[in-house]
């Protein structure tokens, strides 16, 4: 299986990255919390205090509204191309859910916030999931699908 070609977008990607960082800084300024998608979602489905769920739901609503704002401003919905079959989507989603819970975080919590704090745990976690992801993509695209 080969992937779809995608265009190299250094400036857009850098600008988007700055916005992601800005959101993390604002959450720390407002609530004193790490901006981690795993933590936000876990808190919504796990037994946290009722008063703790409202802002998490509001944040998820804001996240979903993000691409709609881009659509409103640019007139174009950002591309979301899923180049894998639906069983792979299901397996991938479930495996990600298991992994980020045991690993206590994902790309946002460990990869951005934890790395920015120079946390040894987050650096170790990020190196691990980046390598595991690259190996998985290589195996699927070039060994199994090759």
């Amino acid at each position, binding site marked *: 299986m080969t*992937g779809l070609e*995608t*265009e190299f*977008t250094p400036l857009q*990607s850098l600008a*988007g*990255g*700055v*916005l*992601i*960082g*800005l*959101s*993390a*800084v*604002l959450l*720390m300024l*407002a609530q*004193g*919390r790490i901006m*981690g998608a795993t933590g936000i*979602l876990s808190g919504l489905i796990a037994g946290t205090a009722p008063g703790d769920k*409202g802002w998490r739901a*509001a*944040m998820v609503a*804001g996240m979903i509204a*993000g*691409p*709609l704002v881009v659509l409103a401003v640019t007139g174009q919905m950002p591309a*979301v*191309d*899923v180049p894998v079959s639906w069983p792979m*989507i*299901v397996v*991938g*989603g479930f495996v*990600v*859910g*298991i*992994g980020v*819970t*045991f*690993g*206590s975080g*994902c790309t*946002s919590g460990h*990869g*951005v916030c934890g*790395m*920015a704090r120079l*946390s*040894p*745990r987050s650096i*170790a*976690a990020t190196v691990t*999931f980046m*390598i595991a992801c690259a*190996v*998985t993509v*290589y195996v699927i695209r070039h060994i199994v699908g090759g």
Partner: protein
Amino acid sequence: MRLLSGFIVGLIFGVGIAVSGMINPAKVLNFFDIAGTWDPSLAFVMGGALITTFIGYRLVLRRDAPVIEATFKLPTARDIDARLIGGSAVFGVGWGIAGFCPGAAVPALGSGKWEVALFVVALLAGLWVARMIIDRQAGKGALA
């Protein structure tokens, strides 16, 4: 104030994910496919996010407290243990299979694509099952 700050933070994050291209699994998978259809864009996303957060955290954490809450709630765990590394490795495998990480999948729901909804349902199922396992282990530990 918590609701409003939560929504605004989520919105900026969601716009960032959308503009950066992280929202697109084809692009994310291509970052990892150095031997194939390589697209290095994701390195610029990580770079922009890390530099901004690195500088921003240093400014914010000079304060005695955040604006809304009484204290900063920073992670205190320090051990690099099997659970951290094993969980992260499993996450990486799942990321490589489907091309979505949690923080990219949630904003991608805004695109209205059924594939994204399917991924998020499976993700929530995985989060819930793992939480059950961890809680059960903790319960047993407390009883023993």
